[in-house]
């Protein structure tokens, strides 16, 4: 197992390299640059700026320079937020996004998982229909509708929560964004869980457990649930990577200083270094969570033990 994890870490390096390379050149194919503004910058100033940031050099030299700096942990300065380096921006924003996304994920897995199990156990009964209805609503109502509705009712009318802001991470400020992030995930988890639990409950070894007179707890939790967890784990990996790297919609609506908005804003402003930084961070999280998924798979299912 350790050998397998090590091997996966080694293969992550070329993967990251390919991602960085493709993103770097794709970014440069897009027309414009970080200092092309509507008003038009004084050409002398623009040239100076480009010299400072090495943008006047040939592209391959810039690429090699970027790689070299990246190897030393230097993501470079942000072009549009010149007071900060990319690393500083992530150091400030990432913990915020991770807290919100992580909480939303854990809650979605717990609540969604329980709802899915209940629905499977009461298939085609009222409880099942209620869960299906909730799940459908959760996955069809977009975040940009849920978030303002939350603000309208719970913040402006009932005044239970602030409308927005981070408030230095006060619990009360996190409720809205976490709920909004959680709901669509919860819907997917509940539906997945219901389906895989129903399938699991129908399998032959559950029939064996029943024939042996085991208790409902043993049958449902020990035998049915464990096998039913696999699809949830597969879904959870990529979902986790997406959640902890922030959401532009939720962070914008609730004025949260996370990293979710960087990707879109930086891409629009041709803030090359910030885009690259975001790509690298998302890639690392994706690789990491996929590895965690594979390890969890092996823990749950002995047939998937590696090497």
């Amino acid at each position, binding site marked *: 197992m350790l050998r397998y994890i090590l*091997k996966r870490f080694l293969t992550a390096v070329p993967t990251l390299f390919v991602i960085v390379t493709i993103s770097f050149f794709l970014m440069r194919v897009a027309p414009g640059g970080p200092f092309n503004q509507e008003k038009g910058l004084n050409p002398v100033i623009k040239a100076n700026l480009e010299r400072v940031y090495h943008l006047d050099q040939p592209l391959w030299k810039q690429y090699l320079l970027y790689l070299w700096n990246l190897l030393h942990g230097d993501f470079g300065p942000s072009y549009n937020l010149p007071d900060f380096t990319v690393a500083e921006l992530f150091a400030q924003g990432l913990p915020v996004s991770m807290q919100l996304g992580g909480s939303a994920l854990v809650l979605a897995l717990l609540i969604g998982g329980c709802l899915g199990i209940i629905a499977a156990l009461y*298939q085609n009964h009222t409880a099942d229909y209620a869960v299906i209805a909730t799940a459908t609503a959760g996955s069809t109502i977009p975040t940009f509708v849920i978030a303002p509705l939350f603000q309208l009712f719970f913040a402006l009318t009932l005044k239970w929560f602030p409308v927005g802001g981070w408030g230095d991470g006060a619990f009360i400020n996190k409720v809205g964004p976490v709920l909004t992030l959680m709901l669509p995930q919860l819907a997917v988890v509940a539906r997945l869980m219901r389906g895989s639990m129903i399938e699991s409950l129908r*399998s*032959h*070894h559950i*029939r*064996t*457990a*029943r*024939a*042996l*007179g*085991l*208790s*409902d707890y*043993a049958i449902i939790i*020990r*035998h049915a649930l*464990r*096998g039913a967890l696999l699809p949830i784990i597969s879904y959870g990996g990529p979902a986790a990577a997406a959640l902890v790297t922030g959401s532009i919609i939720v962070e914008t609506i609730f004025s949260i200083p996370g990293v979710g908005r960087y990707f879109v804003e930086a891409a629009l402003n041709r803030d090359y270094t910030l885009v690259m930084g975001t790509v690298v961070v998302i890639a690392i999280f994706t690789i990491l969570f996929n590895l965690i998924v594979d390890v969890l798979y092996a823990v*749950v*299912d*002995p*047939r998937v033990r590696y090497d």
Partner: protein
Amino acid sequence: MAETILELKDMRVRFSTLDGAVDAVKGVGLHVKAGETVAIVGESGSGKSQLMMATMGLLASNGQAAGVASYRGTNLVGLPKAELNTIRGRKITMIFQEPMTSLDPLYTIGDQLMEPIMHHQKLGAGAARSRAIEMLKLVHIPEAGRRMGSYPYEMSGGQRQRVMIAMALANDPDLLIADEPTTALDVTIQAEILELMAGLQQRLGMGMVFITHDLNIVKRIAHRVYVMRYGEVVEEGETAALFAHPRHPYTRALLEAEPTGRKAPPPATAPRILDGTGVTVSFKIGGGFLSGPPIVLKAVDRVSVSLRQGQTIGVVGESGSGKSTLARALLRLLPSEGAIRFDGRDIARLDKEAMRPLRKELQIVLQDPFGSLSPRMTAGQIVTEGLLVHEPSISRRDRDLRAARAFEEVQLDPLLRNRYPHEFSGGQRQRIAIARAIILKPKVVVLDEPTSALDRQVQKQIIELLRDLQSANNLSYLFISHDLAVVRAMADHIMVMKNGVVVEQGSPDDVMDHPQDPYTQRLMKAAFVNTANG
């Protein structure tokens, strides 16, 4: 007189389906005495399994049981689950047909064995563990202590069924219900499991209900028999008496469904049509990035076959013996080494393009009548699909006519050709698969377990159909089967395969009545000890 431990009175099972209520069991009564083995015989759909599932409270959620299933005076039907669970798994246990999937794949067999022991006998882990090891020894699992840590996927089908039996018997039940426990196993394994069950039943003095479609097993193991059809018991009686003097026509039909007859070998002048010399198929396992060199496994090892026109060669052997692989290699569906000659031509090195015109003459019919027909095509389209490749010039109308004719040849109503596979029964589907092969006027047909998934009566009809088609079209068959009774009725030459090599071959009478190789002897003993009126 032994006391009655289970008595069913007027048992009914009804399933509510989208098409309305379906009565699977319609008022069945039966009883089992202590230490007695009772067989319930019937074909698929007769309700024999559902009857016992209802007794055990194991019906699917859309099933409803009614009637009385009395275990020593307690009616199990409608009993609250908590009370039911003090009886099932403790006093009455059940084992099933699917040894591959009936154990939880995620826990070691030790865990699974200990669970019901600890649950019912309220034992601690240590005591349960020694009881579990004792049970594994009882069912002859070698190295029982070490095997406790094995996962089901690390064991063969026969071993898994032994573990299932150990689980079922661990709490000293009064009654064991066995639902086709050997059907999915190879003949030799089947014989071992039956022997084990019969021995344990005598030793432990429990009653046993044995659900099966196989009359040989009934003859061998049961004291009394109930014959079921369409959810009702049509006949019951002592085994010997029932077999000697069946009263109900259905029972007689079941008994007569045993395949009979012999095939005469083709005349000595019949030309050789398909010749394989030293055919070898190897598979590579593993290998790749950081994993070292792959292991080479020879699924077929230097086998030579010579099939003449009008001949049927029966290839027998257990699963994994390489019989299907050999047939696929001969048809050039798998890469192989060695020489293959078809109709006087060396085809071993022909490429895909060169093989294509020959394909119509080399056809195959597979075992699974459910998986081998595309569910999205009509039966007529399935049957004529080969014509699109091999006779692209004929018109749609002519193709349809050919389909109708092929349907007649396999004795299906041509009007059915616009239906989809799911609308046909297993036997009808197998006829469609046969029609798909013979519509191309082949010379050689590989029949890969074509009757294994079918009930005996249907099996008999398919065998007769295959025989008729053979004599009408002078076909050559390579007939693969693990069912020796069927092979004996179909083939004029038999090859016995084990671990990729041919261990013995010859005429059916020689191989089956005077086997030379120890493995063949074991195989024949397992299969025919039953038919010797035992």
